[in-house]
């Protein structure tokens, strides 16, 4: 049987989780005190409610006890997240996941019964750091917590294909910004060397060649898929 989820707090993290779960076909209930945030979800998820999640009775009436997993992500407000976590456990929610903003917050959450404490900012930072030591990534610029620009050796699968054939935007949801290519030359001294040519905003008919370095813009997870090719 499919799991049912409740997402409490529709900030950036909460709303992304709720959307992702709904897209995967799960039953999702979203809760936020801000009517505007909730309204956005009315057609995406199974159940969208405007209520104060620190109100025990309101939570009970919403049927929170029946969900399998509750995800609490109420931004920077530590007191509220602690209170909600406590209520959820008291109401019998089997698995409560809470977003913590720092170590102290995380420790308290664990102590009052949170089943899993997550630190999204820290986790993203660690993953970025890991990707940075990957030998295939030459440069990296973080644009926002979700998007970045990477300079990466063109994967073998891309070699010999045109930009049109690759259809990066359709297949990987990333944009190709530039292709850097080393052109072998013979120097005045008669020794081989190469010069670098940069093709900014390449045309659809341009082809990726062996040894090319490509600059891509996209979401972290989409860029990671290309990195793994």
């Amino acid at each position, binding site marked *: 049987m499919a799991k049912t989820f409740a997402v409490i707090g529709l900030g950036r993290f909460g709303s992304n989780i709720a959307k992702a779960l709904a897209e995967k076909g799960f039953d999702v209930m979203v809760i936020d005190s801000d009517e505007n945030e909730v309204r956005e979800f009315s057609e995406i998820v199974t159940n969208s409610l405007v209520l104060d999640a620190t109100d025990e009775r309101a939570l009970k009436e919403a049927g929170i006890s029946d969900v399998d997993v509750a995800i609490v992500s109420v931004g920077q407000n530590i007191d509220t997240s602690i209170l909600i976590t406590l209520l959820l456990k008291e109401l019998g929610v089997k698995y409560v996941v809470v977003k913590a903003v720092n170590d102290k917050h995380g420790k308290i959450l664990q102590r009052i019964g949170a089943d899993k404490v997550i630190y999204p900012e820290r986790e993203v930072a660690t993953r970025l750091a890991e990707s940075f030591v990957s030998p295939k990534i030459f440069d990296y610029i973080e644009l926002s917590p979700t998007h970045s620009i990477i300079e990466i050796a063109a994967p073998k699968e891309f070699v010999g294909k045109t930009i049109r054939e690759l259809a990066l935007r359709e297949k990987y949801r990333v944009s190709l910004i530039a292709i850097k290519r080393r052109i*072998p030359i013979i120097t005045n001294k008669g*020794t*081989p*060397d190469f010069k670098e040519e940069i093709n900014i905003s390449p045309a659809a008919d341009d082809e990726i060649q062996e*040894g090319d370095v490509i600059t891509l813009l996209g979401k972290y997870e989409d860029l990671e898929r290309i990195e793994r090719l």
Partner: protein
Amino acid sequence: MKKKKNSSCQDHIELAQFYMLNQKYQEAIKHFKIALEIKPDAQVYYQLGLAYEASNEISLAQEMYRKALELDKTLNEAAEHLKNITT
């Protein structure tokens, strides 16, 4: 006998350089390596480094530039490439 060895070494270098200029780096790497097995040479290590660098094998490129510099400290182009890819 010695002469034949040298000419075969030179053949591989020339072949590798030909592949290099045509951006067939994997082929170039293969022939540079054969040439180096016959006779280690700073200039050939440097060129093998270039082929690795061109195919984005940065750590191998560094290794080859270092080997080139071990054999010939005055090989400025190797020092320069090594500096560029290390920073």
